[in-house]
């Protein structure tokens, strides 16, 4: 592992189980991310990857097991609290605030880091004005990082798909997270767009010093960017480790990659990684 052993992990999942009626979508899920780690979560469709995200971010309260954020137990807390503790995410199906502008989408996420209170907004106190200015400045920075500065005042719904994806990441970053969870960020992009997304994800990690957990089906992306992989199947972890190892794990090939995949594709990854 890349991070030193004694650092408190940003997130820890211990025996997290999610039960939907008779379906155990996730069972005894274990995960630990140290600061600045970049981990990939892969597995066949319906393996429980998104469910794992939901359990970590408070969308669902785990049926059993514990989730710790920076050592603090957060089971059953509302998502906004967990978010404020430093976990941010994007969604598999884009969930932007469609009728707000790009900059407002990001500003919403800066919301919980404001300083002035509720009444200040009505009085327009100096603290409030300072607050707003700093929120706006920060939001613009995030837009800039994601290459969306020129879209500042466009409604989110009018952005092309790829930019919506990036805007969602910018929004998640604006919550000031220690861990960023990306649910299939490259879906719907073509190969070239994926390459630039890859670079972007690395840049985010380096610039903001975050841990990143990424779900992705495109092996070029996920193998290229992740330091470690966790593989889920039917809600159970079937393999974990560095990409080179996981890629060759027969269980993973059988359940997920398929033989054809190996035969057909030379996995070439641009940049460092491979």
């Amino acid at each position, binding site marked *: 592992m890349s991070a030193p052993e004694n650092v408190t992990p940003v997130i820890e999942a211990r025996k997290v189980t999610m039960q*939907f009626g008779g*379906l155990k979508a996730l069972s005894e899920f274990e995960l630990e991310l140290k600061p600045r780690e970049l981990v990939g979560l892969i*597995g*066949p*469709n*319906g*393996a429980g990857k*998104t469910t794992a995200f939901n359990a970590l971010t408070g969308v669902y309260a785990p049926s059993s097991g514990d989730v710790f954020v920076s050592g603090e137990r957060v089971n059953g807390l509302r998502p906004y609290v967990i978010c404020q503790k430093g976990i941010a995410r994007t969604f*598999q*199906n884009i969930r932007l605030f469609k009728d707000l502008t790009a900059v407002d989408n990001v500003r919403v996420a800066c919301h919980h880091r404001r300083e002035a209170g509720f009444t200040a907004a009505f009085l327009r106190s100096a603290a409030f004005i300072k607050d707003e200015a700093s929120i706006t400045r920060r939001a613009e920075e995030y837009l800039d990082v994601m290459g969306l500065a020129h879209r500042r005042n466009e409604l989110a719904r*009018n952005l*092309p*798909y*790829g*930019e919506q994806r990036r805007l969602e990441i910018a929004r998640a970053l604006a919550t000031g997270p220690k861990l960023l969870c990306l649910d*299939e960020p490259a*879906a*719907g*992009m*073509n*190969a*070239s*767009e*994926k*390459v630039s997304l890859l670079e972007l994800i690395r840049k985010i990690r380096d610039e903001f010093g975050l841990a990143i957990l990424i779900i992705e*089906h495109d*092996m*070029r992306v996920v193998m290229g960017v992740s330091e470690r992989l966790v593989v889920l199947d039917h809600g159970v972890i079937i393999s974990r480790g560095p990409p080179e190892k996981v890629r060759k794990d027969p269980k993973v090939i059988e359940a*997920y*990659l*398929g033989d*054809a*995949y190996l035969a057909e594709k030379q996995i070439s990854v*641009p940049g460092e990684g491979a």
Partner: protein
Amino acid sequence: MSESILSIKDLQVNYGAIEALRGISLEVPDKQVVALIGANGAGKTTTLRAVSRMLRPVAGSVTFQGEEISRLQPHEIVARGLAHAPEGRGIFLNLTVQENLELGAFLRTDKDGVAEDMEKFFGLFPILKERLHQVAGTLSGGEQQMLAVARALMSRPKLLLLDEPSLGLAPQVVERIFQVLRDVSAQGVALLLVEQNAHKALQIAHRAYVLETGEVVMQGTGQELLDSPEVRKAYLGE
């Protein structure tokens, strides 16, 4: 070139002030696979939606089997043998998997044939059989995509419009989907395929078009485009 089952001429679509399609023309030869590739926002989805009349074009004509269909209602177009698996899957999340599949065969009257087809698709997508009576809303992303493709095929279309069928699918399933598409095409169904996975799409395509900001900028056989340096750079990430 064999006879076209679908031909689009000078199709224009606007969203309010946005010109999404600025007069594109393309042909889908009968029983062949045509791929439509392009960057995000190029207008691929819009093209498919205009063909199946989910939205109304400003100008241009769409001819299906020699008949002008751009004035028909979506259900009338379906009745003529055109199916559309829309972007975002368009699964009825409130209905069960079975009901979704039955809706795919809404206009069919041959009960036995329907049941037979259903079994056939369970062979291709076993997970659907497992989830048959589950509400589709609880399916994972990939399961929903499989359902969408299976459902579109349930109408036994002559032409199938597919909007990013491999989106969000595990590599193994992507393989399977493309295999299915090959099989389907081999059985004589024409395909108009929109894909971000350009590599795979061009491999199975007889013909392909490249769309950029609402215009066709390049066309040729699948292989021609695969070999084209511009395409390789812009869409294959090389």
